[in-house]
């Protein structure tokens, strides 16, 4: 079963605009990770945010985490055509289960 739910399911924007994707989850977590998947390929790790962090930056990526609302957002600034991909959040389980559970993903399309 999926732990996370991404919103929106699909997003289409113009190159240069900012893209925001949201993720909600159900259980208490140690950390939350974001991954990118290009069509027909495996997932690539983008960024990890810990439960005691509220915001984290990496290049054009900005991630926020609100543990009280059990939600996270991924912002991609100044989008490029190469950012076209599906984006997934993944969470662990503070109870100790070591599996990572992924959401359904947001399909992002950047139009040139």
């Amino acid at each position, binding site marked *: 079963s*999926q732990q996370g739910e991404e919103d929106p399911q699909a997003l289409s924007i113009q190159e240069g605009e900012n893209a925001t994707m949201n993720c909600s989850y159900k259980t208490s977590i140690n*950390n939350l990770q974001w991954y990118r998947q290009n069509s027909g390929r495996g997932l690539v790790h983008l960024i990890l945010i810990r439960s005691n962090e509220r915001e984290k930056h990496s290049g054009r990526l900005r991630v926020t985490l609100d543990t009280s609302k059990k939600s996270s957002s991924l912002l991609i600034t100044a989008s490029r055509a190469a950012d076209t991909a599906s984006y*997934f959040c993944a969470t662990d389980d503070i109870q100790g289960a070591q*599996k990572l*559970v992924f959401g359904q993903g947001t399909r992002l399309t950047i139009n040139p």
Partner: protein
Amino acid sequence: GAGVSQSPRYKVAKRGQDVALRCDPISGHVSLFWYQQALGQGPEFLTYFQNEAQLDKSGLPSDRFFAERPEGSVSTLKIQRTQQEDSAVYLCASSKDSLNEKLFFGSGTQLSVL
């Protein structure tokens, strides 16, 4: 190679046939995961190994699915008596330690059961 390698890349099986999917993780990586991904969906957890120990197999959909990692490196996912609903992409991922804070994924095996 430097990354996670999966073979075959594509597999077509007749219903009822047994299949074996191979994963070569990054050398020295402790953790290994198998996921199943249906078209347009997120990866669904199947099973998790820490070295040769299978610590979690709660995601395996039925007893037709079996995974092993006998020497703590290469892993095989076996599906017996395949059914059409087994058609999906099977992804393998590895992580350098048991914290699993960064997974490295292979490109997957796309299984089609006819």
